């Protein structure tokens, strides 16, 4: 039995609460992070990702408290991202109870942050989030700010660079597919997964369980991340794992 492919539900967080909304609009409160995380854990989530979508200095304390509360009751890995600007932010999140911290925009502005954080806390604790948009056949560019700001960086070249800087994992989001529910950008996922020796988490576009299967079998992803299909209880994580297992993918069984 090999290593299982992971299913990672992602929760958007604002001021320490789970929120739902599309493209930062019409955000509404969607519950207590502890309760939602516990439910995902019981369904067999292999890991849970939290994205602080406001990432404002004013609400940072609430995020730390939320992570601490979740970590007291949910005993699977917790990845936290959003607004990580300095090694001190990484430390604060890890000390609050995060197992991995994801770095996005700040790592583009200052790649040394990735190197310093990985050297200090180990590659296994540092995830680099890459938001990419297709700019031509077989070409993707890294964007920031929810896909609004181009960086001029080639996504595959940047992925290789962050691996070299010491990142332990890539969280790869297709901004073309994010929210579209038409499936992962499989060509992007495959290109990055094949280019790297570190694991790649595919993200952006999941609308069906078949999309999760495709992310692994066609995209070559080591883990698949989805938000809305689990938020809105369209599918449980157990159903997702069972579908993946039917497709011949190694998963961690949590229903027997």
């Amino acid at each position, binding site marked *: 039995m090999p290593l299982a492919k*992971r299913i990672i539900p992602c929760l958007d967080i604002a001021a320490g609460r789970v929120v739902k909304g599309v493209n930062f609009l019409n955000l509404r409160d969607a519950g207590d992070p502890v309760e939602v995380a516990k439910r995902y854990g019981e369904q067999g989530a292999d890991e849970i990702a939290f994205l602080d979508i406001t990432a404002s200095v004013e609400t940072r304390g609430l995020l730390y408290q939320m992570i601490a509360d979740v970590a007291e009751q949910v005993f699977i890995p917790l990845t936290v991202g959003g607004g990580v600007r300095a090694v001190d932010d990484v430390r604060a999140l890890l000390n609050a109870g995060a197992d991995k911290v994801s770095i996005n925009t700040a790592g583009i502005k200052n790649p040394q942050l990735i190197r310093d954080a990985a050297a200090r806390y180990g590659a296994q604790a540092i995830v680099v989030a890459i938001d990419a948009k297709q700019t031509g056949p077989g070409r993707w560019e890294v964007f920031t700010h929810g896909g609004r700001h181009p960086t001029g960086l080639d996504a595959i070249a940047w992925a290789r660079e962050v691996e070299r800087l010491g990142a332990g994992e890539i969280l790869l989001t297709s901004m073309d597919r994010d929210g579209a529910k038409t499936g992962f950008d499989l060509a992007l996922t495959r290109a990055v997964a094949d280019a790297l020796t570190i694991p790649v988490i595919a993200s952006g576009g999941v609308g069906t369980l078949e999309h999760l299967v495709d992310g692994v079998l066609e995209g070559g992803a080591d883990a698949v991340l989805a938000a809305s299909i689990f938020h809105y209880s369209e599918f449980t994580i157990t159903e997702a794992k069972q579908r993946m297992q039917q497709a011949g993918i190694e998963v961690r069984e949590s229903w027997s």
Partner: protein
Amino acid sequence: MTLDVAIVDYGMGNLRSVHNALRFVAPDARIEITSDAQDVHDARRVVVPGQAAMPDTMAALNASGLREAVIAAANSKPFLGICLGLQMLFDVSEEGPTPCLGVYRGTVVRFDPAKMTDAQGQRQKVPHMGWSPVRQARAHPLWAGIADHTRFYFAHSYYPVPREMDLVTGLVAYPDAREPFTCAIGRATLFAVQFHPEKSSTAGLRLLSNFVSWNA
């Protein structure tokens, strides 16, 4: 007052997950994170977690004044090493390289990038990140109630190669079943694991519960 479980804090941070999980399985026990050598000396049981890089970890352990207390605990009372808390028990780690505690003969090596394909030709990644099934190489009280080949959560790029094979209590097939590596060791009152029981859901909590009630 004597601690039931001392979680050794040698200054590398983030011991909270281990503390949370131990308190969850043993809510009435006196379990504390401590950097006091006397606490470690007096405690009934000792847990040594670890993550991050080995050079920093050993430097911090040596600077903390806890090195001797950790070695003494490893040789004398119920002791659980986790991740780098396992690796540090051997002679030397390739990471650095760094001399370690030398409680047991053996080395800690990195996954070989040239050998990261499994028998099906699938490429495997480093770090070894996620849930792998653990083969219980021999029966042990800490495996009680945990089925053989249960998956535990791993997150590491280095693994131990013990010289004494009778130490081995658990094996994991990564990158491939042809060359499983040692992910758990046990001798006398010591048990140590490469995976993270505190992050391994039900099975991990059971292992921690077994440790807290272990009459070694």
